[in-house]
């Protein structure tokens, strides 16, 4: 039963671009061609003169009618460097990155708005650039925010366990560096929405590609200065998100345009805009030392991770906050004595940071996996042997990690063993040797990872809040509400399965409702879907079930625990022939609940109302401070062949074994894995957002921001193990981000293995053909 998929496949999807309202106007943004420049003047006369143009909104109007974008995470109290910028949705004073909007044209139709956008005349005074990390951190660097002391937004320092002791115990210490280039998620659908300000009631309603409607309502209401209770945000069908549709920013301008014009206003972002002014995953550079014993025991890490965050504009504090998981996650799935990790985040004249599939958890894991494989090489150990030696063992759960994570459950050795068996490691290692003599270069990569999932962090909008409601309607159909928007991750299938199982109903009668801001919660981010919302839904369904059996028992004059719920019917365990349908039962509860049918005590307690709203919060976070509740585990093994004359990597084999606890729907989980792995492969091999010396983004389309096509994507062999999480309501663990982490790391590791003859360290993603050739040339002392 896949209601949503069946609807979409029939062409009945309603994505943002499909929204039509009576009297609707269209909005197009005018972006800056410069990366850093003072706005000297804006002349909108020519644009306004074009027939069909209704209004042009510039930074001046935005400043006059809205407030600065609200703070979403604030950790100033911790004594760290943590700076926040006072910025508006459209700036009036200066632009800070290539493409940043300086005006928005509203017209009768989109084509006219696009034409008028070319007629807006802006005079700029170009400013020197803080275009990358090095420039931005240099003394006297041009400042992105004039009122800051320098471009350093954040500097966090963490000590986990006893780092000094770890290094005292060490036989050896190895320095490891790792760079990851700037990438982005690029769902095929860009962002879009319609805003409708009702001037009679002073209410605002919006529809669009909102990944987190409840948070968007809060931020849009705050920006517009409208009471939150007068704003409603509706998510429509969303064409992929991956974290890129969390932040409401341009959406504020759409809302303002509707308020100013009194008309519904639609904005559908061109994909090129999405790339240039949409969220990016930051570039990072790790520099660390790992301490270990000669027998392969891992002890500690001292590392600094530098982040090129881009501008701070649109999600204030969230980019800075992402450094937290980056610094925490190197512990991965191993036992440690101690770590000292510093995270430095710098603003630059680039587009802003977002939580693209990983948020930062990925950063630390990819780094430590690369580091551990270096240690293995140094000690002439296999990558599997060093892991087996350091894994947290199955009997040790729940395991209190040195960084406060409470690891819930799992069998890490079993996952790795299964992957090695499927990948036929022994065969490929032999084959690598055999081919080496023939000038062919096979490489085998192996990494293991846990994925911290289900986020709850204090002092920010990702505090872990969630709400779900399950109700039975008078005709016996079921509504399921939650904050978990469907972004292609199988919410409807999962939630309908959970509720159908608990209530003993057919999935056909379960209706998973579209998400609106009416339901509290931070939405699907940081793989929290299977942890928070799914737990809240399961909990609500269980509470509802309790009511159902209580009422049915009362009706049937039997104890509640004698009521059986099965396939849409309720009956006494001892007399299945006396079954009644949910429709008959619900009709009775709603319209004929009178005392002669039901126990009066039930009526007095209002327990006959078949409607439960509840919440769910992690059982571990309150006491441990662990920001995450579940930790799925995966092992990735990849075999690649390298053409060393061109630098082209070909994937020969890909194996992924994982354990995300109880599986609600295997097809959905496989889909997450396959999609995530191919995204990780894209990041490892092709994807990169590059700015030129003038701060111009060079990759603004699919022709030069290269995501894998069906040709490059490999066949993927998957196996599941299921160790239920003791902490989630269903035993499931979040797993949406795990595949992208392992995939990127394992491909780079495999390339390094293929190049082992050259002694090349593959520590700069993406490993494009050009870069691979450069490494080989450098390693073999070749010139052109």
């Amino acid at each position, binding site marked *: 039963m896949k209601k949503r998929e069946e609807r979409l496949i029939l062409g009945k999807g309603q994505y943002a671009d499909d929204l039509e309202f009576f009297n609707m106007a269209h909005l197009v943004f005018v972006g800056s061609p410069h990366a850093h420049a003072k706005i000297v003047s804006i002349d909108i006369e020519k644009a306004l003169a074009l027939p069909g143009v209704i209004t042009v909104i510039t930074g001046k109007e935005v400043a006059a009618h809205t407030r600065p974008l609200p703070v979403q995470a604030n950790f100033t109290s911790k004594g760290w460097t943590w700076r926040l910028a006072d910025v508006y949705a459209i700036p009036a004073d200066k632009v800070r990155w290539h493409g940043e909007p300086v005006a928005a044209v509203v017209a009768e139709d989109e*084509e006219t708005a696009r034409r008028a956008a070319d007629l807006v005349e802006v005079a700029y005074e170009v400013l020197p650039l803080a275009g990358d990390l090095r420039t931005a951190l240099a003394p006297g660097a041009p400042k992105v925010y004039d009122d800051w002391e320098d471009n350093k937004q954040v500097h966090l320092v963490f000590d986990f366990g006893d780092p000094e002791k770890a290094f005292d115990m060490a036989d050896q210490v190895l320095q490891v560096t790792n760079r990851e280039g700037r990438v982005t998620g690029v769902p095929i659908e860009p962002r879009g929405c319609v805003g409708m300000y009702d001037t009679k009631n002073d209410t605002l309603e919006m529809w669009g590609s909102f990944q987190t409607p409840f948070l968007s309502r809060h931020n849009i209401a705050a920006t517009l200065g409208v009471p939150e209770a007068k704003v409603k945000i509706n998510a429509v069908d969303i064409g992929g998100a991956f974290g890129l549709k969390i932040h409401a920013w341009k959406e504020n301008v759409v809302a303002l345009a509707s308020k100013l014009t009194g008309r519904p206003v639609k904005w559908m972002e061109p994909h090129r805009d999405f790339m240039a002014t949409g969220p990016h995953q930051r570039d990072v550079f790790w520099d660390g030392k790992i301490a270990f014993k000669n027998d392969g025991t891992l002890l500690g890490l001292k590392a600094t991770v530098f982040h090129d965050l881009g501008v701070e504009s649109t999600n204030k504090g969230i980019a800075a906050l992402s450094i937290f998981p980056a610094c925490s996650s190197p512990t991965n799935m191993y036992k440690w004595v101690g770590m000292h990790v510093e995270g430095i985040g710098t603003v630059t004249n680039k587009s802003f940071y977002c939580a693209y599939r990983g948020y930062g958890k990925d950063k630390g894991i990819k780094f430590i996996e690369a580091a551990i494989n270096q240690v293995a090489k140094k000690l002439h150990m296999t990558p599997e042997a060093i892991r087996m030696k350091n894994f947290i063992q199955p009997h040790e759960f729940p395991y209190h990690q040195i960084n406060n994570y409470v690891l819930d459950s799992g069998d890490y050795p079993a996952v790795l063993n299964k992957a090695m068996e499927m990948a036929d490691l022994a065969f490929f290692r032999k084959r690598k040797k055999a081919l080496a003599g023939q000038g062919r270069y096979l490489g085998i990569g192996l990494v293991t990872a846990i994925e911290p999932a289900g986020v709850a962090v204090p002092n920010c909008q990702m505090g872990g809040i969630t709400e779900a409601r399950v109700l039975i309607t008078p005709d016996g159909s079921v509504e399921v509400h939650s904050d978990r928007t469907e972004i292609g991750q199988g919410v409807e299938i999962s939630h309908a399965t959970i509720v159908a199982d608990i209530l003993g109903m057919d999935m056909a009668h379960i209706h998973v409702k579209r998400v609106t801001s009416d339901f509290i919660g931070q939405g699907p981010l940081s793989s929290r879907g299977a942890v928070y919302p799914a737990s809240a839904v399961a909990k609500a369904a269980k509470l509802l079930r309790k009511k159902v059996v209580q009422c049915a028992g009362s009706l049937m004059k039997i104890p509640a625990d004698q009521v059986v719920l099965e396939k849409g019917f309720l009956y006494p365990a001892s007399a299945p022939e006396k079954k009644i349908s949910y429709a008959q039962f619900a009709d009775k509860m709603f319209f004929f609940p009178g005392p002669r049918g039901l126990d009066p005590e039930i009526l007095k307690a209002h327990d006959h109302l078949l409607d439960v709203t509840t919440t769910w919060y992690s059982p571990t976070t309150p006491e441990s401070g662990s920001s995450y509740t579940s930790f799925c585990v995966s092992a990735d093994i990849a075999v690649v062949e390298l053409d060393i004359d061109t630098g082209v990597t070909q994937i020969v084999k890909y194996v992924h074994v994982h354990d995300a606890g109880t599986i609600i729907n295997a097809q959905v989980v496989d889909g997450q894995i396959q999609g995530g792995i191919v995204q990780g492969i894209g990041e490892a091999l092709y994807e990169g957002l590059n700015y030129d010396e003038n701060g111009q983004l060079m990759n603004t389309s699919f022709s030069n921001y290269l995501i894998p096509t069906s040709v*490059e994507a490999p066949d993927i062999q998957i196996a599941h193990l299921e160790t239920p999480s003791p902490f989630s309501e269903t035993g499931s663990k979040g797993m949406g981000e795990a595949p992208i982490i392992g995939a990127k790391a394992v491909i780079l590791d495999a390339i390094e293995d293929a190049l082992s003859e050259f002694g090349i360290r593959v520590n700069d993603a993406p490993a494009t053909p050009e870069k691979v050739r450069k490494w080989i040339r450098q390693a073999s002392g070749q010139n052109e």
Partner: protein
Amino acid sequence: MPDNSAGNNAMENSVMKNFIGSRAMPDLVYHSPKEISDLLSMVDAHGTSARVVAGCTDFIPSVRTGRWCFDQELNLIDISKMPVLNQIEKTDDVLKIGASVSLTRILESPEIKEGCPVLAQAVAQMASLQVRNTATMGGNICMASPAADTVPPLLVSDAWVIIQDAQGEHKVLLTDFFKGPGRSVLTSGQVLTHICIPVKKANEAAWFQKIGTRTAVIISVVSAAVRVTISNGVCDTARIALGSVAPTPVRVAEAEQFLEGKPLDDQVIAECARMAAQAISPISDLRSSKEYRKDVARTLVKRSILACREALK
């Protein structure tokens, strides 16, 4: 991708003022001539406001990105429906391909497979199926992109084009056609109507290879085409062309001459490839550094000659 855009360079305005995600299409009058005479009179009548298109796969993206801006109404002359420009004719000596023949038809044509298989080999690696179904041969040439993948195979095949205008037909060797990125010898009032290729002979082989950052649907970082004829174990004629390494696709004469009169042994091939790479001075851009281009050009030339040698065995 390709687009048949004869002349009209004067109307292009490269000043990009604002960053706009996707620009509006200009006002258009759409013309769909059937005969060459109609086409020529339309091109003549509309002067600088005329623009000849076929597949539109380059025209529309160029407008959307602001690469081409038009400040007057455009007379768009669509030649894709002209039967006379949609034919592939083959005589014993020459293949004659109409400018509006789609890339898919090149790929599927038995005449091309027989007469110039290297062209089909290149087209198979171009763009996506959707684009190949509409993009045309003439368009790929007229856009004069240094990265046009049909061009190196045509250059090594000694192809020429037929240009028509009010004065009649002109034959121009493809080696003389390109003037720079996006620029060709075509002037206002002229239309490229056919591409002509000498038919492949028994003692010859040709090969095309390209490299891009990704495998599929990718603009070439470097492309290479090689054609050799052999008699009595030595190379008679050699043609080597490279794409994406200069302002236009180029032939590398020194390397060609080096190969001629020599047996195709490994050493000769390696030296020829080195000379080919030596002869070019590519630029660094978004897609690649000049160093990688030179480096990989050598490998592609080497592998292409080796493939020709293999085919001639």
